[in-house]
Every structure is written in C-alpha cells, then in structure tokens.
C-alpha cells in the first residue's frame, strides 16, 4: 500500500514540475472582470443582515422556501413541548427517537410515547419504525435556511435521516448568519478536541427531482422537517 502511495504521489509531483499558467479568462468576456484586491467569500455569497431580527426573518423565509416547517416559539420549553404534542397528535405518532440533551429530552419525554434513544447504540429496525426523530443541532444557518447537525450534537448519523419526520429543537442563540460563520463555529467547538465524524447541513426535507425535474419530497430521508426554535 505504501508503494502505491509513493508511486501515485511521485506521479503527481512529476506532473507538477511542468509549470502551468492559469487561464486569464480571455475567452469569457461575457462575464464581468475581476474586482481587484483580496476578497473573502462572505462578500460575494448571499447577503445576511446584521441584526437578530433580520437573520430570523431570512431563516424563516429560506426554510419556508425549502418546505421546512419553521416555528419560532415564545414561551420557552413548556411552549415548545405543547407545540410538539400538537404535532404528535395531528400526525398520530406512535413512537419517537431522540438523544440525550436538555431540549430533546424535555420534548420527547413529554409525549407519553415509547422513546428510542440512540446515544448508546440502538436497533435499526426500531429506529426505522419511529414516527419521528427529534434532535438538537449545532446551528441554524440564516443564509441558506439549513440546519447544521453533527454526529455529536444530534444523536449520531441515522437519527436525523431515517425516521419519516425530523424534528429539530433549537434555541434562538443558535441562529448564525452564514456558511462562513457556521464553519467558524464548528472550528471553535471542535478543531482542538477533534471534529465529529459526521457534519451535515440539512436544507429542507429529503427531496428529488430525478423524475422530469419535478420536486418530490421524502425521496429516501424524512418527508417532513420541522424546526422548533425557542
């Protein structure tokens, strides 16, 4: 194996000995010229306002467009629990799955339904049969309407994608402006201690456009994504 590694890397190095010039864009005159100077991605990516209200509004707008059900809830944990109970009742849930955490435990525990916990290993069939997976998250990204989950924050890899309904419980402080801020947050949390083995930006429920480019929800993952934010 080391041999193959050396062979491949040697070929790469040898190829790179040939100096190459970066194309100057002469053949793309329909596109505007470059703005000189050093620029960061945030300057060009979709704009996000500085205030909390603007970010909240943008998150809500993007989530709606992604057909995620985003609810900003006043009244703390009790209100969140009530909201979730309402959803469970309307949808006729028979069991849920969740993981350790203040919000998740409060939410799942109050439903009076069987609860599968994933943190210490679980039975895949049991998880598959749950009506919903209730998870916490690392952050909500206003710029894209995404939920940022990791295997550490959200009960592993499967919980947020196997059950047909993914419910995210979050706090308002968790709304970050943009992708750059989301990665900065991950770095501040994990670059020292080690990153979780899975990091995922979830943008709306599972979807496909593979048939005539017509949008269908719930291709393989959840058909519904609900974000409850207090």
């Amino acid at each position, binding site marked *: 194996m080391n041999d193959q590694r050396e062979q491949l890397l040697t070929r790469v190095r040898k190829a790179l000995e040939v100096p190459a010039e970066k194309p100057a864009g002469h*053949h793309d*005159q*329909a596109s505007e010229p470059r703005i000189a100077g050093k620029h960061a991605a945030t300057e060009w990516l979709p704009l996000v306002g500085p205030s909390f209200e603007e970010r909240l509004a943008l998150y809500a707008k993007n989530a709606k467009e992604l057909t995620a059900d985003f609810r900003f809830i006043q009244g703390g944990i009790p209100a969140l629990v009530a909201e979730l109970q309402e959803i469970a009742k309307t949808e006729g849930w028979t069991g849920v799955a969740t993981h350790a955490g203040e919000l998740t435990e409060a939410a799942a525990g109050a439903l009076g339904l069987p609860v599968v916990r994933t943190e210490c290993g679980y039975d895949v069939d049991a998880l598959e049969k749950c009506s919903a997976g209730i998870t916490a998250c690392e952050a909500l990204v206003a710029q894209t309407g995404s939920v940022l989950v990791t295997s550490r924050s959200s009960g592993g890899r499967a919980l947020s994608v196997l059950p047909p309904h993914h419910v995210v419980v979050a706090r308002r402080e968790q709304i970050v402006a943009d992708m750059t801020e989301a990665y900065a947050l991950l770095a501040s949390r994990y670059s020292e201690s080690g990153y979780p083995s899975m990091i995922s930006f979830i943008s709306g429920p599972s979807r496909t456009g593979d048939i005539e480019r017509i949008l269908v929800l719930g291709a393989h993952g959840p058909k519904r994504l609900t974000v409850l934010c207090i």
Partner: protein
Amino acid sequence: MNITLFVPCYIDACYPKVGQSVVEILERLGHTIDCPREITCCGQPSFNSGYWDETREVAVKVLDRLKDAEVVVIISGSCGAMVKNFYPELFKGRPEEAAALALSEKVYEFSDFLVTKLGVTDLGARFPHKVTFHDGCHGRRELGIKAQPRALMAQVKGLELIEMEEAETCCGFGGTFSAKFPSVSSAMGEGKIASALETEAEYIVSNDSSCLMHQQGLIDRQNKPIKTIHLAEVLNHR
C-alpha cells in the same frame, strides 16, 4: 481617421452589400477607408480545424499587410476574435508575436468600433421593422460585445427590437463544425430559428454574416417566415 477595413472572405463573395454599407457609414462619418485587396481571409477555418501551421501561412501575410494600419475594422465578431484574441496565441513564442499583439490592440469589430472607439450610436438610420438580435458567440464571449449593437439599434427610427429567449445561444454554425457535424449543426440552428420565430420578428439581425449564412440556409430550406440581415445594412438603411 484612416480606417483599414477587413472584409472577410464570405462577405466579399456572398454579402457585398454588408461591406458596402460599412464603407458608406464610415465615410459619412468623415473617415477615410482603405480596403486592401490582398487581405481576403483571417485563417479561422484552418485554425479551428487544428491546422495551425497552415493558418500561420495566411496569418503572417495579414500581419504584414496590416502592420501600418492606424486602426482596423473587421465586419465580423468571429473574424475579429480570430485576429484580436487568437493571433497572439497562434504566434506565441514566435518572432511574429510582437506584431500579433500590436495588431490585436488596434483591431475592432464593426459595432464595437462605432460605439466604443468612435462614441457614435445615432447614424440617422430608418428601418421600420420588427427585429430580433442574434449575438454571435465569438463576438459575445471572446470580445464581450453585447451592449454595442443594441445601443446602435436603439437609435434606428422605426426599428422595434424584440429580444428572443435564446439570443445568446449558439446557432450551430461554428465554421467547419457545420460541415463536419451537419446534423448537430442544423439541429442547433433549428432551435435558434424557433426562438427567433417566437418573437414574431420580420428579421434576425446580427453582426456576424457567417451565423446568418447558416441561419438563412435553414430558413430557405424550411421556408420559415423570417429573414436575416446584417446590422450594417440596418444601420445604413434610410
């Protein structure tokens, strides 16, 4: 200004009125025109076919014959791109490179020359027709021409421009490509013409006669209710 006019081979042979219109327009603006007889073709067909040695045989002559010109106007975005963008590449690392770069600096496509170099848009033309515009790909993407012809057309009395959805989509001419892959080329042209027909325009106007030659060829074969015309003829119409 002493303007040296580069009349591409197919314009010379098949579309002389395009060249005549350009001469008349520029003369009316008070410029002196020279059309060197010995310049016939920029060499693009062989260049795009991969025969760069053969292209250089033609291109060195062009370089030589245009070296003393004050400014060169080419009546085609495609040939303009050849001389402006590709001659320097063709002669890269060769003795003629400096001459190619020098020529590149003083070459203009016709509509670009009027608007950018001369700062003229109103030529006193009248063309009481509904038209749609085809952006030739080389003019658009190699030379960045888009606003210039539109600025010129905006001043033509009676002209109504209706943009087609596929204005910037290739019509499928592509030089020797049109003969190497005629079925693909024609299918692309059909798409273009369909898009033009949607506008219900009477004319497809363009600053590239080569694209129009291909489109007109399809229009004639399929009896489509639309005509093609070069921008210069529109601008010279009163």
